[in-house]
């Protein structure tokens, strides 16, 4: 790269406030970005990726302050610029695409109104021109119905489309630099590919420089020219993408690679009666059937992965099993006995046997209760433990999930990290001493290193207590790591089921093939090859 330098950050230091004390969260980062270049920033949560990304716009989040270093954007010192000068820059020359497009769009305005806001305010073009431009960009981003989609409200389009509309919006003023903050993390694999391809194309077409922040190496490998690895606010290493992937220098970078290699030892084939059978279940919300004639079995001590994209009915199946949604037809058998269809009809013991762990530990734990009560409640309710016995049990459970009881027992969920919260979710499920645990996307919101910790913990607990897991996920890497049996679902139907070995060996059903091929690989050419192989251009209907 011999092109002009666009952004140069030197010795950047940022402090964050917790309570009354300031701690350094970015400890002297240097970063150089040339015009038209894409830099991937990767690292686990808390590495300071997003903070650095925002600092590139001269911005520090509430509770953060930039304390040292220089940020030079095309000859402009962003640290010394006035708030007004920065405002002129942001949106016009530097744009930002956030992780959750759904949360970043204003739900009360149409997409195109939000698109036009930046160019009109910055005086780049008048409203009519901006609208035409928006439609043109929607077309380039491969959005369905580019002429009409802008006139919809954010809740009327799917997550993947929204993320592309957000990228188009960031492009509206043809900025020199775009910061992508985990743009595909919240999407499922098939959608992720579309967004990733669209982002890559548009950045190339307009020769825009970009900082691509993610914790997923395979994703960043597709989009970035160079990769920088961060750990706890410090740089670990930086190299060209290919060089980095072929030969990572530092041990930490190698450990990032190794995460993907975790695998649970093979289990002996299932024998005997299944612990839970879902038999010919049809379920509906109102009059729309979301599950059609679904059947599968779960055996004790085994993990059944239920795979499919958003809206395939995976979570609905879990709701039927737990009794939240009584089925229209069919039934759920637990150890050979039919479970009452509705939650209200089930005995306390039947409730105890099936526990659930949720995707978003943030919303699954009552933020106002201390861990003592969060974990202790099921034990108190189901097993009648009180006083000392309850305290001992809670402490044992905390030990099991590898959290120190003395430190954590009186904490609130808000005082824990994402991975720790998920561990509390696991402890709460274990407290009931269940036979089956339903894990609904439990690792999707976590970064890879934390994910691995959770998967290892689940595996260990499974061997220790002979638990059966129903593992709902869209991440096939996770399936490969821990599943024994796989159920593939699409549009409320079971497309294919069998043991993991059968499932990952060809031949596949077309949909299974699509899912399998959509899992990003650690090869910078993977996306290009995949898109070429799927001869047809990216399908519009897959969202």
């Amino acid at each position: 790269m011999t092109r002009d330098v666009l952004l140069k950050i030197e010795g950047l230091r940022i402090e964050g406030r917790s309570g009354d004390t300031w701690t350094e969260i970015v400890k002297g980062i240097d970063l150089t970005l040339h015009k038209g270049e894409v830099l991937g920033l990767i690292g686990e949560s808390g590495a300071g990726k997003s903070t650095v990304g925002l600092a590139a716009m001269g911005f520090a989040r509430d509770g953060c302050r930039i304390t040292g270093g220089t940020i030079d954007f095309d000859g402009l010192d962003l640290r010394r610029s006035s708030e007004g000068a920065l405002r002129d820059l942001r949106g016009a020359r530097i744009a930002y695409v956030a992780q959750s497009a759904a949360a970043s769009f204003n739900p009360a305005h149409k997409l195109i109104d939000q698109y036009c806001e930046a160019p009109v305010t910055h005086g780049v073009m008048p409203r009519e021109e901006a609208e035409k431009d928006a439609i043109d960009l929607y077309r380039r981003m491969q959005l369905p119905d580019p002429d009409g989609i802008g006139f919809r409200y954010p809740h009327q389009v799917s997550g993947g489309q929204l993320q592309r509309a957000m990228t188009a919006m960031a492009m509206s003023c043809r900025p020199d630099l775009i910061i992508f903050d985990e743009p595909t993390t919240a999407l499922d694999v098939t959608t992720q590919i579309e967004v990733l391809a669209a982002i890559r194309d548009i950045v190339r077409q307009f020769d825009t420089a970009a900082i691509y922040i993610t914790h997923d190496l395979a994703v960043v490998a597709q989009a970035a020219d160079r990769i920088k690895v961060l750990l706890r606010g410090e740089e670990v290493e930086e190299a060209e993408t290919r060089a980095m992937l072929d030969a990572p220098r530092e041990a930490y970078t190698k450990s990032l690679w190794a995460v993907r290699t975790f695998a649970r030892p093979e289990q002996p084939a299932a024998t005997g009666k299944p612990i839970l059978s879902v038999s010919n279940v049809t379920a509906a919300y109102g009059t729309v059937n979301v599950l059609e004639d679904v059947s599968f079995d779960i055996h004790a001590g085994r993990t059944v992965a239920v795979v499919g994209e958003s809206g395939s009915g995976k979570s609905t199946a879990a709701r039927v099993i737990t009794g939240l949604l009584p089925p229209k037809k069919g039934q759920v058998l637990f150890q050979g006995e039919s479970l009452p269809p509705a939650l209200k009809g089930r005995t306390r013991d039947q409730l105890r046997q099936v526990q659930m762990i949720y995707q978003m530990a943030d919303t699954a734990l009552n933020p106002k209760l201390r861990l003592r009560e969060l974990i202790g409640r099921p034990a108190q309710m189901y097993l009648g433990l009180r006083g000392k016995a309850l305290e001992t049990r809670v402490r044992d459970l905390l030990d099991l999930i590898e959290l120190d009881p003395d430190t954590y027992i009186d904490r609130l969920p808000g005082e824990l990290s994402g991975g720790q919260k998920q561990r509390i979710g696991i402890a709460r499920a274990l407290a009931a001493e269940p036979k089956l645990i339903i894990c609904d996307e439990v690792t999707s919101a976590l970064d890879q290193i934390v994910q691995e910790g959770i998967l290892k913990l689940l595996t260990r607990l499974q061997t220790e207590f002979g638990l059966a897991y129903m593992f709902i996920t869209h991440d096939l890497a996770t399936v490969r790591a821990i599943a024994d049996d796989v159920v593939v679902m699409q549009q409320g139907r079971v497309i294919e089921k069998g043991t993991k070995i059968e499932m990952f060996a060809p031949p596949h059903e077309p949909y299974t093939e699509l899912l399998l091929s959509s899992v990003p690989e650690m090869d910078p050419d993977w996306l290009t090859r995949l898109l070429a192989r799927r001869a047809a251009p990216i399908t519009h209907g897959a969202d």
Partner: protein
Amino acid sequence: MEFAASVIFGLTALFAIAWVLRASARSSLSGNARSLANDIPLTAAFGLLVIAIYAIVAISAPAIAPFPEREIVGGQFQAWSGAHPLGTDRIGRDMLSRLIYGARNTVGIAFATTTLAFVVGAILGIWAALTGGWLDQVLSRFVDALMAIPALIFSLLLLTIFGTSVLSLILVIAAVDATRVFRLARAVAQGVVVMDYIEAAKLRGEGAWFLIRREILPNSMAPLVAEFGLRFCFVFLAISSLSFLGLGIKPPTADWGSMVRDNATLITFGDVTPLLPAGCIALLTVAVNFVVDWQLHRASGLKG
């Protein structure tokens, strides 16, 4: 002028005492109480101090008051003097004593009323949001119907029907206010009941009472606390205006609202005495809201 100066001096003194108390709390306490003391803003310290003073005055009224509440101890409308620091009222009862007893009656009733309105309104509101369906419809439409009638007229109507004892006063105003609390609690709880942790608790087989008490209520506290401060003041004003209309606390029981009415004629002579009960109400209102603001700030986790 002299009066205004003494009011300003009094308020400044209260702030100064609040500041000193906060400083001594910070240095003497430890642990949780210490962090609370560190966190408290001066306005909230002032509010707490004022509330504490009111509470002490209300509880120990017979000990503090120089004269009994209902006894005629002097001539009518006597000026401020050594024997009667705030003079006497229109039938010759000691103003200061009645002001002190008034704290007991007015504040006590207002507090009981607001608390009752909140307990009933919040529990029903959360229950309606949690259960949904026809129960929610029945309760909500009933509340809508009650709210359609102007509050003051409705209370006047009910008080005329049930008579104006202290108990019926409390029940009537609480019933009227509970409708407002119900609406708020229901709206807030509707946002909470969709969270996964509520689903998790339902899956666990928890009953409605546990869900309301341990899962939903703690997560709905912030807006309810803010509303409490506001409602408390409204109830105060409602009691005072009812007393002013002659339907509230019955004479000869001392009550700030009726004290303003009884002595209103004095204002025409340039005497501030009738305004003192009103001033007491205003001061308590401000103090309660200072404390509520602080609590709201803590509960909602707002910083800065």
